[in-house]
């Protein structure tokens, strides 16, 4: 083996990428190793910090996160600290701007973006490609969809926006050049938006149907590699502000975020290996000294001084639960808390568990100390140089409270220190 790494990050979602970038840019040799892509590819591509507390929408996400952290000591924000959140948001914004995929928002104002159903969805930082969608702005919205793209329904979005008090209407087009393909995958459409002739043909169809003063919403497929260029070009051709509405996975905006991180990490000298599960580890006393990953030809050891575990919890397979409801952390076999307790009985016919009224789900996760080190069964750090970040941390309701990326960035930044 040539040389060890100062830090190995296991997992390539928001938390792992943030930890790796923080460490590498602080001058530490960093390796990212992951079984596959993480939450970036599945989520909105926005940075949610905190949208709701107890069902009430918050106005200042970072301040609300501080309130939540002091009211609920088991929440991940209580562990990461809200200072870390503030710094992490800043570091993330600067990084994305450097990578050519700038974000807007300051974390202290809840931005309201239309969801793909037309709900007003609160978030904290948004890519520039979505910024014009803020529902606090007054311009009427034209939601544009493609009848050969099945993951976006403009008329439903527009009617729900109208009912929410926003002026909106819908236009359905056929993606030009794809008239004979009924079922366009989002990546195909995104790559089409990267090309000027496609945008030109689209603008020629759409332009005459726009009214002055309107802004134009598209599904979030406005370019995979040239999103900013596509946005500026469309705005110029249409003479109107343009924005994206995120829809079903795979997330094009999320893939852009992943690609931006990947570019920055490689430029700074880090190594990123996706597709190589970690299958073992070596220790020296209470220190992890190496990880073993599975490569195509053989298993390989990677020596390291420290490890950040950011494998994403149940959603990503970092924690698995068997049919006896026994939960297991897959890399280190760390003890898992808050395993899923099955209901003793559910009523077979009458609605037993209204989905929207269920109590806080206790998703399995890791308990950590103040330095984000996972605890062993005795309640002390399992290893002195092992840190956990992201969705592995238990205690949040990320989808309902809209806190997922904020927790990942804050804990990732802390763990990368």
């Amino acid at each position, binding site marked *: 083996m040539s040389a060890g790494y100062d830090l190995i990050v296991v997992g390539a979602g928001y938390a792992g990428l943030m930890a790796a970038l923080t460490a590498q840019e602080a001058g530490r040799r960093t390796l990212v190793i992951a079984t596959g892509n993480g939450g970036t590819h*599945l*989520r*909105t591509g926005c940075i949610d910090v905190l949208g709701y507390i107890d*069902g009430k929408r918050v106005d200042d996400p970072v301040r609300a996160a501080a309130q939540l952290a002091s009211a609920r000591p088991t929440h991940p924000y209580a562990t990461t600290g809200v200072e870390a959140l503030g710094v992490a948001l800043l570091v993330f914004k600067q990084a994305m701007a450097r990578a050519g995929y700038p974000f807007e928002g300051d974390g202290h104002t809840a931005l309201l973006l239309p*969801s*793909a*159903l*037309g*709900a*007003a*969805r609160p978030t904290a930082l948004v890519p520039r490609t979505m910024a014009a969608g803020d529902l606090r702005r007054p311009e009427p919205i034209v939601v544009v969809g493609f009848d*050969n793209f*099945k*993951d*976006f*329904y403009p*008329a*439903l979005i527009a*009617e*729900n*926006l109208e*009912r929410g*008090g926003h002026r909106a209407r819908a236009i359905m087009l056929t993606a030009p050049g794809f008239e*004979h393909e*009924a*079922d366009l995958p989002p990546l195909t459409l995104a790559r089409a938006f990267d090309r000027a002739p496609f945008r030109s043909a689209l603008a020629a169809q759409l332009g005459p149907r726009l009214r002055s003063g309107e802004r134009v919403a598209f599904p979030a497929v406005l370019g995979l590699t040239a999103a900013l260029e596509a946005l500026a070009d469309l705005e110029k051709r249409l003479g109107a502000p343009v924005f994206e509405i*995120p829809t*079903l996975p795979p997330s094009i905006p999320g893939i852009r975020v992943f690609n931006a991180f990947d570019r920055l990490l490689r430029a700074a000298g880090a190594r990123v290996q996706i597709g190589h599960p970690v299958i073992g580890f070596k220790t020296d006393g209470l220190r992890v000294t190496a990880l073993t990953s599975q490569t195509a030809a053989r298993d390989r050891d990677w020596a390291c001084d420290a490890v950040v575990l950011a494998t994403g919890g*149940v*959603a*990503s*397979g970092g924690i698995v*639960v*068997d*049919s*006896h*409801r026994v939960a297991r952390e897959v890399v280190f076999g760390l003890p898992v808390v808050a395993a*899923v307790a*099955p*209901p*003793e*009985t*559910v*009523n*077979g*016919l*009458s*609605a*037993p*568990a*209204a*989905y*929207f009224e*269920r109590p806080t789900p206790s*998703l399995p996760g890791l308990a950590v100390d103040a330095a984000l080190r996972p605890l062993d069964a005795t309640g002390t750090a399992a290893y002195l140089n092992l840190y956990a970040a992201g969705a592995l941390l238990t205690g949040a309701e*990320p*989808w*309902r409270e*809209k806190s*997922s990326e904020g927790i990942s960035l804050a804990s990732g930044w802390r763990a990368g220190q």
Partner: protein
Amino acid sequence: MSSLTTEILVIGGGSTGAGIARDAALRGFKTLLLDRADLATGTTGRYHGLLHSGGRYVVKDPISAKECIDENYVLRRIAADCVEDTGGLFVETEHDDPNYAAEFVAGCQRAGIPIQEIAPGEALRREPRLNPRIARVFWVPDATIDSWKTVWANARDVQIHGGSILSHHKITGLIREGDAIRGAVALNVRTGESITIHADYTINASGAWAGQIAGLAGLPVTVLSGKGIMIAMNHRLTQMVVNRLKRPADGDILVPIRTVCVIGTTDVRVADPDDWPIEEHEIQYMLDEGEKLVPGFRQARALRVWGGVRPLYQPPSLGAVSDTRDVSRTYTLLDHTDADGLSGFLTMTGGKFTTYRQMAEVAVDAACRHLGVERAGTTATTALPDSEEGRFYWLGARLEKREQDPHGDQLICECEMVTRQRIVEAMRLRGGDLDDIRRTVRLGMGPCQGGFCIYRAAGLGHAHAIAAAPATNAHLQRFVTERWKGVQPLLWGDQLRQAVLDDQIFQGLLDIEHLPGWDSVGSGAPRSAGRGDKAAVRPAKQPSGSRKRKTQTGGDA
């Protein structure tokens, strides 16, 4: 109050009721089929889909076994489009009594069920996931049948022959004139309107609810409810039906149906066919029994658990029954003219899905006799709509169709290969209720349990003016709530992972909880009905205290 007149009124839109209505309509009667909910949402729609050879009952319940094999052959002819000819195996595992095989073979001979013993090695070659420690294996003509498709085909034939279907109508009373029943009064549960139905003859085919209907005429009919639970696994662990070679017990059959396989079932007597639990220990028991048939069963992905209630008729002479497993699976015709001196009314209950057609024929024969007309039944030889060519359904049917034109239409539900055209057609016929559409085309019944397709289907319903946004939002919420009911008890393994992803889509991405017009989280229906919905909006949840709402909700096949 509006009124209708018909010759034969059939109460209950499960397989038995739909079969009776078709039988009567084919004999030239003006027929009306009524159900309190959608068709096939009671026991029929909550069944595993096994078209019995009868092998399961040869030792314990030989009459039912004979009925099963007779009707197995008939349904293969008349309902081919609903049947997949999987074949079935009876396997003796190390947990089963080796003496049972001889009884089984003798019983099959008596019932006329063709069987063939095959070597365990040959059985394992055909079904490699089977427990390798099987000692004896018998092939039987088991098959699988899509219960929804069968009921819909029967209902369509009723309409083709001039009859009509009244779904979402609950019987509130029977019309009695002297010693005769002359129809019924029903409540439209969606609009609250009552309707009087005048009928020459009324047939009670309400299965586990038959006692309640007969009670409206003051007749003491005892139908026990035997609850069975089932778990659908995300793919077909076997391609043939697999039965344990033993007396029928819990968790001893594995049924490959469409894209999944179903393990079943239990048999627990419950007091109320509308209110019963699915318990954690029952689920664990199913998994343990699954391991005995297919080692590694617990590592396979469980999609959804549900249950149904069998109607089991208890003759007054039998007295108290402790174990519903011991009640015969045969059917019972209660001729209230002969037994109770009340004419114009009969009850057909008990039985099995496999024998629904025979039950229907026997019921309509009795009605003819009392009406003094002589018209022979023809359902044993007349194919159902879409089954005329006699071609069995096969698993690759949807894929084959898709491959003929891979770019011509959108796949809205990838798991079940449901196209956009198919969904829009179903919505035009049946309205925008996504749960109704699920039962019609199997939308959202695969591994993702609606995570991806249900947003698309909702958008399509709206785009095609089937439902306005408020109704669409309510349909979405109702669907998500329904799915959660079956998924919640199975949160482990890949299905837990899927459930978290689905949460992320519904709550994190779509923010379905904060659509405009919902009073608050979980309040269900929107404030106003907007521009309306062809299928009226049903609130996702009734006001508090309604846990025992008497509306049926669909299960899986």
